[in-house]
């Protein structure tokens, strides 16, 4: 008996441990899933309240009720314009900036990278009050482009940092061949480096987009006209009235508003291990 156990130890201990780990993880997952379950179940429930419960009957009426221009379509379109514009600007500027930082040795690189790294961690929330005051002075307040620029600037430090790290992973030899053929830096960046670091670019793009899509404070401060508001702000205004809010509709809108970023994330994560790549890039 004793001998038997002894022999079986490594495998059985491992599988026992796996079972324990599985159980522990499932408990945590259940805790994390409860609020998510609420939003999904309530969105399909005509009589939703604040509690997680199975709907009496599945209905799409909540979705019908919120799928209107002023509640859903306009804010989502605004979000798309703001975040799409901001992300495009971020990715282009970051790719351009990362190239010399990754490829050429200059005495400016280190101070520049240090500044970037420093800026990565600044609490953007803190500067929103002065940004608001500044935007009033220069007439950028309540403009889409002003908000796009600020979004891009606030994401740029991290985007440059990620982009440079990904770019460092692309071997330099490939470009050197292109250079001897007379290609310019820009050409080699666009034709050789970027295609080779596709996953990296995708991670930066998705990460920037997700961050902007969910951001509440920036548009809340910099935009004033209701028609320009992205979904992050309009959802709060529309459903901020807790006393009389229809929870099912709130849940339905939350689902609609969250789906794009979740899809994007899944796309990147499944194809490239996006989240894990991101974790790796910042782990230090």
């Amino acid at each position, binding site marked *: 008996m004793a001998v038997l156990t002894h022999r079986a130890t490594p495998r059985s201990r491992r599988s026992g441990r796996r079972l324990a780990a599985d159980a522990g993880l499932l408990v945590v997952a259940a805790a994390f899933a409860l609020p998510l379950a609420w939003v999904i179940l309530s969105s399909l429930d005509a009589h939703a309240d604040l509690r997680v419960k199975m709907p009496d009957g599945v209905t799409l009426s909540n979705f019908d009720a919120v799928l209107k221009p002023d509640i859903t379509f306009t804010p989502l379109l605004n979000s798309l314009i703001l975040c799409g514009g901001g992300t495009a600007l971020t990715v282009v500027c970051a790719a351009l900036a990362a190239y010399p930082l990754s490829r050429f040795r200059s005495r400016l690189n280190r101070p520049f990278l240090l500044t970037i790294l420093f800026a990565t961690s600044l609490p953007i929330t803190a500067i929103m009050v002065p940004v608001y005051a500044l935007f009033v002075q220069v007439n950028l*307040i*309540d403009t889409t482009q002003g908000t796009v620029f600020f979004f891009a600037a606030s994401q740029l430090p991290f985007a440059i940092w990620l982009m440079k790290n990904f770019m460092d992973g692309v071997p330099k030899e490939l470009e050197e061949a292109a250079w001897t053929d007379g290609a310019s830096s820009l050409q080699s960046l666009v034709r050789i480096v970027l295609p080779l670091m596709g996953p990296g670019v995708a991670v930066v793009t998705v990460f920037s987009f997700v961050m902007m899509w969910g951001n509440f404070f920036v548009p809340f401060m910099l935009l*004033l006209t209701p028609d320009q508001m992205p979904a992050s702000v309009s959802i709060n205004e529309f459903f901020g*009235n807790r006393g009389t809010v229809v929870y099912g509709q709130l849940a339905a809108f939350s689902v609609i508003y969250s789906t794009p970023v979740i899809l994007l994330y899944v796309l990147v994560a499944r194809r490239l291990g996006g989240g894990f790549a991101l974790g790796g890039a910042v782990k230090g």
Partner: protein
Amino acid sequence: MRPTAAPVLLATLLAATTLTACGSGSGSDPDTVKVSYKQSTDNSIRVMDTYLGEMKKQFEKANPGKKVELVPIKAPDSEYYTKLQQMLRSPKTAPDLVYEDTFLINSDITSGYLKPLDPYLDKWSDWGRFIGTAKAAAKAQDGKTYGVPDGTDTRGLWFDKGVFAKAGLPADWQPKTWDDILAAARTIKKKVPDVTPLNVYTGKPAGEAATMQGFEMLLYGTGDGTTDPLYDTASKKWIAGGQGFKDALGFVETVYKEKLGPDVTDALDPNFATSVRGELLPKGKLGIDLDGSWLPQDWLKGSGHEWPEWSQKLGLARMPTQHGQAPGKVSMSGGWTWSIPSKASNPDLAFTFVKTMQTKANAQKWYIANSGIAVRNDVAADPAYVKAQPGIKFFTDLVASTHYRPAYPAYPRVSTAIQEAMESVTTGDSSVDRAASAYDEELKTVTDGQVTRK
């Protein structure tokens, strides 16, 4: 170079990089009046939207080629003012016409946000129809007038006759002192346990409603009931919290400590006022409500929470003074005005729109639609107006004995200090004495030390 260096640099760089080229819709159209107003956070209430929509139609018909663009700001009271002030700061966002609460108007005038209307008013014969107190409401310390009031209001006690019957209280209830109110609330709590006995607005989330409907309705009923307990006009100083102030806070504390009021979490929800009007009163879930004259606007036909039976279900009582001392009753009056921002691009057209809204017929329509109290004497005298709605007579009679807030530039911040004091006794975070002394400290800060003790 001090304050402007950074912005100027930024502006030039922006221009140089032609980043602004993609700007859209920033230019203002000389034929369009942009009108900003407060939209209810209750999605089914669209009283003002409906009325302004009608005015827009009239205006556009009478002035071919001109347009009105309505810019609703949907926010609870306390956040509406912030958004509005943010918009008024820049010519880019300043509308042509704004809906201003009179408590804030002097503050905004001092900031240079609004335009004096005297040149327009001089040439407008209807201005003579406005009663004196209304004209004064938007008159600044410089003697100029900055707004056209669209009505005024008074405040009193609303009570649910059904709840009162169950509690064995009279249907013609009229408390004589504060204690009478508390006694009625305690009776309701005991006999009708599933309703909230008494609502007194409180705390910062309720904003000015807490100060005015709640605190000032109490404070102005302390002392001799005639002198202003907040501001001393002779010395031009604000008055630190005295006994009356503490008594008023004590009333609030009692209401929430004894759980006579709504659940504190609900009371401190910025949208609680919306729930009171849309849910608690119509559903018979509230015994007594210390509130404004405008409540029925939500219950009129076509306004979202239709409840035509309200006049049978609800009773009205005057708010008594603390101990029943003369004059025996208290009311506060405020109101809103239409004002033209100093950064408006089409002020002339904006005033034309004001004139459209303020013809006798349209003004009357609005007073009735929003349950306002007429400030035009021709409407006030019109029997059709007096009879239009139950309650109008009750609240109009209160005008004779009403008080006006000392709406000087510092008032909004004094008001916030009051709300903070209320909130801290509501949650039980501090005692009445501590809250009152915290108020005194805050008062010194917000008025630059212009404080006196009485």
